[in-house]
Every structure is written in C-alpha cells, then in structure tokens.
C-alpha cells in the first residue's frame, strides 16, 4: 500500500512535484504515466525514502516515509531506471547480494525460488554483463523482488526493450501483484499503461487525472469528441472551428474536437486511445 498526500518537491526553484496525491492498494498494478521530466522518478525516489519531500506526507507499507525511512526501505523493492545490476557478478551472485541485504538467513532459499520463478536458472552462473538487454532487465526486476517486498517501485522497467521482452516483463509484474504486492510502475509508453489496473497521468509535476484506463477514456469522452475523417486533408480539418488537435492516420485524419464543435457530415466517432486522453488533458492543463 502506497499513499501519497500533497507531496511537493522543488529543485532550485523548479517545481518537480506539485501537491501529488495518489493511492495504490495491495495486489494492484498502478501506472504513473507521463513524459520525460514529468516528475515520475522524483516521486518514486521520495516514496522509497531516498529523497525528502519539501511538503506533504506519504505512507508506504503502513509506515510514514518521512519518519521511518529505514523501515520503509526494508519493506520495498526498487528497480531503478537503468538496469542496475553488477555486470561483473553472475546472475546468482547479484541476487544473493540483494537477498542478503534484506533477509540474510533465508537468502539462499529466496534466490533459488526467484531463479525458478523468473526462469533465470539457465543463466544462474552467467555474468550479468553477458546477458541480453531483455534478460538483464528481467534480472533487475528479479533482484527488486527477491526479498518479496510488500511494495514494489519500478522506474521505467521496459525502456529500450523489444515488444516480446516487454510482454514478458509485464507478465512478471502482474505475477508480483498477484502475490499481493502493491506495484507502482512508471512509464511513458501508452500501450503499457493499458496493462495497469489504475493510472495517474503526471504532467509538469501535477496529477492531471487518476482512474482505470476505461475511466480515463470515459472522462475524456465526456469532455471532447474523438473522430476520424476518411480521405480528409489535414490542413482543411485542422482549420475547422472547434478542432483541438488533428493528425494524419492511415487513409484519413484523426482529430479531437470540442463537444460543441459544429462539424458536418463524414466524421466517424472512434474510441479514444490513452494517447488521445493524454493529448486532451495536457492541452487543458495550465
């Protein structure tokens, strides 16, 4: 369980986080969706007790982060943005080192268990530096969860991976949630956001909206129309009154328009993607 309340943090006058509040329950995969520089990593660092917030409070695994950062650190798993593994150690040694930091007595058993659960056994004695990107990322994830944390923070766990590797990583993430962990994942991939139970859209250090992917799309549909014009010209469509955004798509033009836009015939209503939602909400953001 993660609970943030009005968390604020500035770096030299620039507000990286502006009164961010969110809640992640046990067994939930919660996505933090936003472009680079939105404040995703800053939030994860604050929640994991590495960075102090300027204002606001946060509870992780039942402990207040500001008051008991050490207690929080013992209960969480944190996979940093770069696949942080020791390349000159083997897969097994990497995992054993992590496990010993948290649970020295059960370390051996925990490593065996995670090796088989993550399918890393064939590579147990390979140097981490010799693994391919996908497997290294899998190892990074494995070492974040080897001690079975109650809360899991994953900072862009699939950056730079091919679609197949990404799918496997996401399967493993859901496995962790099924075990009962509260998982907070940051990403800037819209398609990945679809795989989360719930999402928060983070933009310029502020939460624009929170909800399930479906809720967010419904919210967007209540505020605007998402349309497609087969064979339309981009310039002509973009120039129409009430059109918020337009871009070429296949044999026609996709557009977002105001609810009351006076549009004529030939416009087909389409279901918005999360990217559409994001585009609309960031337009509305101050």
């Amino acid at each position, binding site marked *: 369980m993660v609970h943030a309340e009005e968390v604020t943090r500035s770096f030299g006058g620039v507000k990286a986080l502006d009164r961010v509040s969110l809640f992640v329950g046990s067994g939930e995969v919660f996505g933090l969706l936003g472009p680079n520089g939105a404040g995703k990593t800053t939030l994860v*660092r604050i929640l*994991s*007790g*590495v*960075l*102090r917030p300027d204002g606001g409070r946060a509870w992780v695994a039942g402990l207040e982060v500001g008051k008991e950062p*050490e207690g929080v*650190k*013992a209960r*969480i798993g*944190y*996979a*940093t*943005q*770069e696949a*942080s593994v*020791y*390349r*000159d*150690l083997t897969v097994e*040694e990497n995992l054993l*080192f*992590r496990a*010993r*930091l*948290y649970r*020295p007595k059960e370390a051996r058993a925990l490593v065996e268990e995670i090796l088989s659960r993550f399918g890393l056994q064939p590579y147990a004695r390979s140097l981490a530096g010799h693994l391919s990107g996908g497997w290294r990322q899998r190892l990074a994830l494995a070492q*974040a969860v080897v001690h079975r944390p109650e809360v899991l*923070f994953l900072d862009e766990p699939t950056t730079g991976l091919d679609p197949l590797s990404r799918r496997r990583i996401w399967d493993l993430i859901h496995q962790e949630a099924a075990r009962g962990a509260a998982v907070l994942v940051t990403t800037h991939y819209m398609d990945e956001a679809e795989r989360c139970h719930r999402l928060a859209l983070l933009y310029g250090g502020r939460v624009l909206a929170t909800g399930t992917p479906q809720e967010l799309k419904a919210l967007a549909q209540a505020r605007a129309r998402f349309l497609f014009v087969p064979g339309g010209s981009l310039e002509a469509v973009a120039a129409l009154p009430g059109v918020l955004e337009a871009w070429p798509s296949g044999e026609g033009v996709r557009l977002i328009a105001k609810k009351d836009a006076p549009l004529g015939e030939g416009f087909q209503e389409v279901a918005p993607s999360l990217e559409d939602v994001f585009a609309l909400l960031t337009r509305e953001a101050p």
Partner: protein
Amino acid sequence: MNRILALAEKEFLQIRRDRVLPRLIVLLPSLMLLLFGYAINFTLKHIPLALHDAAQDRISQALLAALGEEERFRLAYTAQTPEEVVEAVDRGRARVGLVVPPGALERVRRGESVALEVYVDGTDPNFAFQAQAALRRAIQEVNARIQVGRALAGEAVLPPLSPSLHTLYNPENKTAWFMIPGIIGLVLTMFTVLLTALSIVREVESRMMESLLASPLRPHEMVLGKVLPYLVIAFGVALLVLALGHWVFGVPVRGSLALLLLAMFLFVLGSLAAGVLISTLARTQVQAVFGTYAYAFPTIFLSGFVFPIDGMPRFFQFLSYLVPARYLIEVLRGVMLKGVGLGVLWPHLLALALFSALVLFLASARFQRQVAV
C-alpha cells in the same frame, strides 16, 4: 553486521573477478620494493674516475689504492695530460677527475703539501656531495698513514682532532633499510585511498548507488562494507612488503611488532576515510584518480619517504607536519631500525590517531550529507 558482510563479500568478489587488479595488488608493491632495494642505491659505489698521474710514485700509488678501497672508485680513464681529465668528465667517461702533480713523493719528504686537483661532476648535487666525501675519506686515509709513519720516525705529531665515527641503526648505509619503511607507507597510502575512492565512485557512476540507497543498507554500513575489503588487502600487502624486506633485504624489526601494527592500523583507518572523503568530492573515476594523486603527492615528497625532511626549507618542514605518512614512517623507522618503543614514539602515534579521527569524522559527515538529499 550481516549487511556489512554482504557488501564486503560482494566487493571481494568484484576484485577477484577483475582480471588485472589482484595481480597488480601483489606485484606492484613487490616490484617497487625490489626496484628501490636493488636498483636504486643512494650509496655510491664504483664511481668512474679519470686520473692523470704525473708523479707515478709511492704517494700516487697509495692514493689510488685508497680510492679503490670499499669499491668507492674505479679507474675509468687514464689521462695523458691534466686537460684530458676535465675532458673525460665533460664527455661523461668519468664523473670525477684527479690530477696528481709531478714529484709528489719529494714534496712529501720535504714536508710540503701536495696540491691535488680534483674535478667533480656537480650536475647532481647529491652525487657530488657523496663523491666529495668519498674522496676526502681516501685522502684522509693516505694522510693518516703518512703521518703515522712520520710519528714513528719521530718527525711529526698526529693531528689534534681525529673523529671515531659510529653510524647508528644502519651502519652499512643500506638503501633498502632506509626505503622499506617508506615503501610500506606509500603502499598503504596508494592502495587504501585509491581503491576505496574508486570503489565508491564506481558505484555512483554505474548508478548502483541509487538502488543501494533504497535498500536497508545504512550510510555507515555502506562505508564500512566498502572499506573492509581494502583494509584487509592493504594490511596483507603491508605485511608482504615487510616480510619481503625482512627475508630478502634483511631489514630488521628491532622493536615491537605490535607497535608497528598499531601504527599501520591507525594510518590505514585514516587513509581509508580519506578515500571515502575523495569519493564524496569526485563524480567520476578519473576525478577520483586525480584526487588521490593530489593526496598522495605530498605523501611522497613531504613524508621523508625519500627526501630528508631536515633538508627542506622551513615552510615545507612545517607542511610536512600535516602529512600523516610522516608520522607512520617515523614510527616504522623507529621500530624497525632503531628499536625504540612507545616511550619515544608516542607523539607520532598520537598524531596518527588524531589524523584518523579527524578524517573519519569529515568523511562520515560528508557522506551522510551526500546520501541524505
């Protein structure tokens, strides 16, 4: 404690897995020792001599024999004229030139002084100083012999002052004896400071620090876990140098070994902390290397490792009090060569303890602040 050990073991594994580092750790100090012990010799021997002997009598023969004693000089060039002597030094065939004037024996018999012309290559002041001393000794020996002969014949009296020299601690002036305590100091400085600084900066550079910070590892555990392997390595290497010095070069350990180890421990503690301190200031491994050099250079030049502190200008003598290796080397030389104990060496040990405490305090304060952003 478990976490410290986990980190220390991980560190050991990484050192062992490194292809070059373990060999370097053992080879480098050993080579340094052999180099300083065998190759670099501050006691001059076989100084090449150019000689023009116009006398060719018993006096010049006695002088030549005295010069050859204890392998001080060797005759490298026999000149036909006095000018050729200087030329030989110019050309580098000889480094010392000697001209014995004609009729030396007759002059001595008449009770006159024989004016020997001596030319010493002064490009290296250290060499010139030692060559002059060796020449003077040879001439004194010849003088003494002549005077003894005269005294027996009842002709003259012996000189009123004659020194009877006792060189203490290292009577044979063996360079290795002088160097080995210094090498131990240098090895301890380089290994501890450099390796510690590098290992912490590497952690930051490879972004591993972030995930260690988010683990239950406390800052002081991180420092201890990082430092522990290098403490063991540095101590092992210091003992290796000590053992090599003892068995290969016969350097004695006349005082208490425990005192020696205590001084080394205090010094290593401070040096490791200095490594941590450098790591908090350096952001890349290259910066850490240069930071270590900045720290190690004064150690080499101001600790009395090679260059005698007594020969330095006042200002640098004062500066040398700020170099911890100075105290370590004093203790090492005191215990090994002089065989003195705590009663004499306590000020140096106190200085080492103060240094270590200060640097440890600074390092942990800076590290804590860096971690708690």
